């Protein structure tokens, strides 16, 4: 049995003359879906696998699928004769383009056997001269295959017993999930490195035996954390060999990984005798190396040369490379990948200092994996699109920075002094912090990943609607960190004269094994989200807004609540002062809050709707029915219903002339710095916000009762009281903000609306017996599914914002929620 090693991702070219057994070999050793056969594609495009005139189209199709598979990092076997250089060249190009190895497996069968085999196959009657020619081409090719660019060439005989072994890529450390401390460019700053390691909790120990030239300085973390160095250990700094020793010993110990930096690579070349320009601090390294003997220099060179250009950790969620890495290169291997890792991407131009102008790949980065890198010194460690630059220029007198993973915290120690002067001033990479959103991040059919509901699908037609609303009517997206979910009503009541009654809501929660619920009075207002910062500076810092606002108040579809900015700023100021009086800034250690509220009166936002729709319809109904009321008793009854309907909408209207006429009832304290408060109970939200509301007469605490679903009588009675006075009804929520039952997530809230209120939802005459009967048959499935998806998106948006993900990642959820709102659901639910 012969073992053949094939990299886990490769383009495998089967090479051999017709009839040599390539296809049989491929089928025996690879999955059917991994094999792209030229014969098969000839058949696909022409219905005839042997039609040589179809080869051009067949290979176009084959290459198309090859590209798709390689994009998805799938090993692919190309089953064609591949005996000619031109055919193989294309495969090498594909391997390069997709940054993976090309492997040739040559099936070397004697010409005679190939002849015999072809002779037995009715579709292969192309004469011996073809085989002969192919054989000659193959013979000429074999010795050149490696030079052509095949990383591995395996020649197999038909009689060989072969086992294919797939080898993981060296950079594949997906199984290593951390925790890690990723450390920026050291550049010989051994003193700062020691200090940083100590700060991070690493402990120094001496090895029993010192090994030349590595010494005995060993560092390890008592909890098994591991360090990952982003490279550039050498040059410029005060103690270059010490820095290399520390890293090398930690690696030896299994306590660290290190990727190569451009300086490390250059030093290897110098050590191996290349003539180089001695600049950018190389002299410092040379000075220290002078002290080493020849054998130690070889050891040093071979250590630095052994450093890989990047690593993929933690199931693919973390990538470390010296200068960063585009997503399509993660885990790949090619000269192009190495170049990128070492030098980043350059535009080809040079700046006034003769340094290459760098292309800001991170600005366009949309990958899932967090990429941590250094190379370009920046004043502060910088997050951009899930990438972090942690080179804070220790050697230039900045700081040596580590990123704790998965905590995503930066830990820095300042440099003791300036060891080298930077060639160009250190400045943030680009002022762009991802604050200009990209259309490609929101349109088309999208899947938004959420913690609560996995993928939420956003359909393309809904995105189309949402784009218009978001662009024309919404509040500045920087402020939009949450859209509240829609709320489903409870199931239809079976009681005569009632469409909704609380029993069904309690029943829903009982069915889902939620025993304790909270009933909150439903205010007769409009849903409003209030985002408030401590001051304009906090707003700028945390939300990236430049409009000078301290906060915003927006509707459930993201529109500014108030037509005039000064009303909004007035309300924000009231909330600010209440937060101050309640001591919330300190208590929550936050200089911003996001509150989910009801803003009253309903007529404030809905004035146009009330005038143009509710009042108008009421008047039309009254005028028309008065005319005919005398004709039949039925019309008199209908007139009575219309009058009740008019009473219902009038209750929700009071004139608003100034800000003082508004009432705000916050019922969820959704988020503050570092925390999304969905881990608290709804009881906590009620009580916490009651404390807040006590500080301003304009704020209203929400009345509520806690209920055991097995004993809901008192709550039902309370609901009857509320609604008989014309109240809107109540909202029933599980005690836990995020409640799970045997079948997964439970509705975060159900509404149970009163009879009077429903008149303005279902129409003036909805309580007429025949109408009520028809309305009872209403399907809630769509509404509930929508509520759940919107809930998941809302929580996700907050969680992303709180963990300081880029704007586009937060916006994706908010935009998705808005898009879902255009799904067709019975608007009366």
């Amino acid at each position, binding site marked *: 049995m012969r073992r053949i090693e094939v990299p886990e991702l490769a383009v495998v070219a089967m090479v051999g003359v017709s009839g040599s057994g390539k296809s049989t070999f491929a089928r025996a050793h690879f999955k059917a879906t991994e094999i792209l056969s030229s014969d098969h594609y000839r058949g696909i495009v022409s219905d005839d696998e042997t039609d040589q005139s179809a080869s051009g189209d067949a290979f176009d199709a084959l290459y198309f699928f090859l590209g798709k598979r390689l994009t998805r990092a799938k090993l692919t076997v190309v089953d064609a004769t591949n005996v000619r250089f031109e055919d193989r060249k294309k495969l090498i190009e594909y391997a390069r383009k997709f940054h993976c190895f090309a492997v040739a497996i040559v099936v070397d069968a004697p010409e005679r056997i190939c002849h015999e085999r072809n002779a037995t196959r009715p579709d292969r009657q192309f004469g011996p001269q073809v085989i002969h020619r192919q054989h000659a081409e193959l013979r000429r090719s074999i010795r050149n295959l490696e030079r052509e660019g095949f990383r591995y060439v395996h020649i197999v005989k038909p009689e060989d017993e072969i086992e294919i072994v797939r080898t993981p890529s060296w950079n594949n450390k997906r199984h290593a999930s951390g925790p890690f401390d990723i450390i920026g460019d050291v550049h010989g700053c051994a003193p700062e490195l020691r200090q940083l390691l100590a700060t991070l909790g690493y402990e120094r120990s001496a090895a029993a035996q010192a090994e030349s030239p590595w010494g005995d300085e060993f560092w390890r973390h008592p909890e098994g954390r591991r360090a990952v160095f982003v490279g550039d250990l050498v040059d410029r700094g005060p103690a270059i060999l010490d820095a290399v020793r520390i890293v090398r010993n930690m690696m030896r110990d299994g306590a660290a990984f290190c990727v190569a930096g451009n300086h490390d690579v250059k030093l290897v070349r110098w050590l191996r005798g290349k003539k180089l320009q001695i600049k950018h601090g190389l002299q410092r390294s040379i000075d220290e190396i002078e002290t080493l003997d020849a054998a130690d220099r070889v050891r040093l060179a071979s250590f630095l040369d052994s450093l890989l250009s990047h690593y993929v950790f933690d199931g693919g969620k973390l990538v470390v490379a010296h200068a960063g890495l585009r997503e399509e290169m993660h885990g790949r291997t090619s000269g192009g990948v190495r170049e990128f890792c070492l030098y980043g991407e350059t535009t080809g131009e040079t700046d006034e200092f003769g340094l290459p102008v760098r292309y800001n790949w991170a600005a366009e980065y949309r990958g899932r994996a967090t990429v941590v890198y250094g190379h370009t010194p920046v004043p502060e460690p910088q997050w951009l699109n899930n990438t972090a630059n942690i080179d804070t220029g220790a050697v230039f007198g900045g700081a040596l920075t580590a990123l704790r993973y998965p905590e995503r915290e930066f830990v820095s120690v300042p440099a003791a002094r300036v060891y080298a002067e930077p060639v160009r001033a250190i400045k943030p990479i680009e002022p762009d912090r991802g*604050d*200009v*959103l*990209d*259309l*490609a*991040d*929101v*349109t088309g059919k999208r899947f938004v990943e959420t913690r609560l509901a996995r993928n939420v699908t956003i359909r393309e037609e809904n995105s*189309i*609607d949402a*784009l*218009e609303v*978001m*662009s*024309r009517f919404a509040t*500045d*997206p920087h402020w939009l960190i949450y859209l509240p979910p829609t709320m489903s009503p409870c199931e239809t009541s079976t009681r005569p004269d009632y469409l909704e009654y609380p029993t069904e809501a309690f029943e829903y929660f009982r069915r889902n094994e939620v025993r304790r619920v909270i009933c909150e009075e439903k205010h007769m207002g409009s849903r409003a989200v209030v985002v408030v910062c401590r001051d304009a500076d906090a707003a700028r810092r945390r939300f990236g*807004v*430049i*409009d000078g606002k301290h906060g915003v108040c927006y509707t459930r579809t993201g529109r500014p609540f108030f037509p005039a900015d000064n009303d909004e700023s007035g309300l924000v100021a009231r909330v600010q002062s209440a937060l101050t009086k309640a001591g919330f800034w300190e208590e929550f250690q936050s200089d911003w809050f996001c509150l989910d509220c009801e803003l009253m009166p309903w007529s404030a936002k809905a004035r146009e*709707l009330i*005038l*143009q*729709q*509710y*009042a*108008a*319809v*009421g*008047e*039309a*109904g009254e*005028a*028309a*029915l008065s*005319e*005919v009321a005398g*004709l039949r008793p039925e019309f008199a009854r209908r007139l009575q219903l219309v009058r009740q309907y*008019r009473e219902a909408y*009038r209750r929700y*209207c009071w*004139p608003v002339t100034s800000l003082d006429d508004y009432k705000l009832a916050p019922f969820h304290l959704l988020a503050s710095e570092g925390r999304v408060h969905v881990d608290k109970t709804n009881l906590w939200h009620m009580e916490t916000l009651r404390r807040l509301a006590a500080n301003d007469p304009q704020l209203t605490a929400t009345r509520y009762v806690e209920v055991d679903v097995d004993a809901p009588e008192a709550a039902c009675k309370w609901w009857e009281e509320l609604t008989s006075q014309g109240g809107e009804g109540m909202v029933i929520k599980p005690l836990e903000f995020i409640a799970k039952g045997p079948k997964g997530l439970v509705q975060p809230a159900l509404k149970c609306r009163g009879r009077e209120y429903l008149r*303005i*939802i*279902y*129409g*003036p*005459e909805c309580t007429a017996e025949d*109408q009520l009967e*028809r309305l009872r048959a209403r399907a809630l499935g769509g509404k509930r599914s929508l509520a759940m998806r919107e809930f998941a998106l809302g929580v996700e948006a907050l969680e992303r914002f709180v963990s300081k993900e880029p704007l586009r990642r937060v916006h994706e959820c908010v935009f998705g929620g808005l898009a879902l709102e255009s799904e*067709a659901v019975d*608007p*009366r639910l």
Partner: protein
Amino acid sequence: MILSLTSKVRPATDLGFLLHKNPANTHRAELSFGAATVFYSEVSEEKCTACLLLEISPVELVRGARQLEDYVNDRPYVASSYMSVAIGRVFGTALAGNCAKRPELVDLKMPLTARLPVVRARGPELLTRIFEPLGYVVTAEPIPLDETNPAWGLSPYFRLTLETTATVHDVLSHLYVLLPVIDEEKHYFIGADEVAKLLRHGEGWLATHPERELIVKRYLRRSASLVSQALEQFEGESNTEKELERPITLHTERVSIVGERLRALGAKSVIDLGCGEGKLLRRLLADRAFDRVAGMDVSHRSLELAAERLRLDRMNDRQRERIQLFQGSLLYRDKRLEGFDAAALVEVIEHMDVPRLAAMERVVFEFARPRHVLVTTPNKEYNVLFPALPPDRMRHNDHRFEWTRAEFATWADRTATRFGYRVTVEPLGPLHETHGAPSQLAVFSL
């Protein structure tokens, strides 16, 4: 929901013959959307009143409903296209001008009064403009919106009484056509046969009606192709002549100037950012100087209209390759906006909230970065010259701001400086000596 028709000519009961409904009985007809009942509230030699009572079934009403507004609906109560359909059904014979038993009555003009307790109309003027030319004495009594909230003002409804001396057939035809015209909503799909229906029932009066165009447009719900089809019947060729004589609108002038300027700048490829229904695109496509023209708008509906107006589906491949339409937003960076010689934003920026202009500026000037950018926006100072515009109002409901000449120039200079463009600002449209031109144009160049 009720229409009454009163005749006071002796014997008034002749009305029963004319309407083909015996005053002694109640007549009921089932309609797809409800029931119509005809009864007589007064029957005497002197005075006879026929009533058409229309009850609309709520099931039919909410068919296809999407918004809450559709459920809380005035349709059951007002006289609308439902009433027209009912007239056609229950008074079909009279509407067609037939009266088998008493044919001599058909062409008899008699004093008639029609009453509609609730009609919806924009204003009382519309009612007089439409009915007076047909010889009616119009009494439109406005109805308050809500008597408990007098501050809310008047409702869009009127108690309408129409008095005239005419044939029953004429009055029914008028009502049949004009009820949906007043109400401006039709509960059914408007197809090609709607034109024929209009011409049939408008025969003898519509052609000479001074508000003919308004009636046709509203009856056909402003479907451009149907309206022109109908108007051609009346006007023949004269329509195009009228087109020519129509004064050039401000917007047309704006589009034409922007087009000329783009040509003069030597732009071969142009993207119209906020193309709306495609007026500038049409101008650019007509000019071979432009090889490639693209239109972007945030409104999907506008793009559909633009595609329709440009007749995209009838273009040959070569023409089709020159034009591209897509939905996008100026607030989002978009690779599709790159690679054009010039971009035009004609009356677009004033539709954006001021704080969001910063994003637009980066999207256009930093990322799309065409060699030239043309931006037009209203000149606020000129507003005083619009007599109908109250002083504190803007020209359009959706305008988020309107700038003076100085404000626009400041913005243009700042933007040009920030993104490394040169800019010139000029008036756009007829110049007034103190207030400037109605619009203003900034031309940015790299």
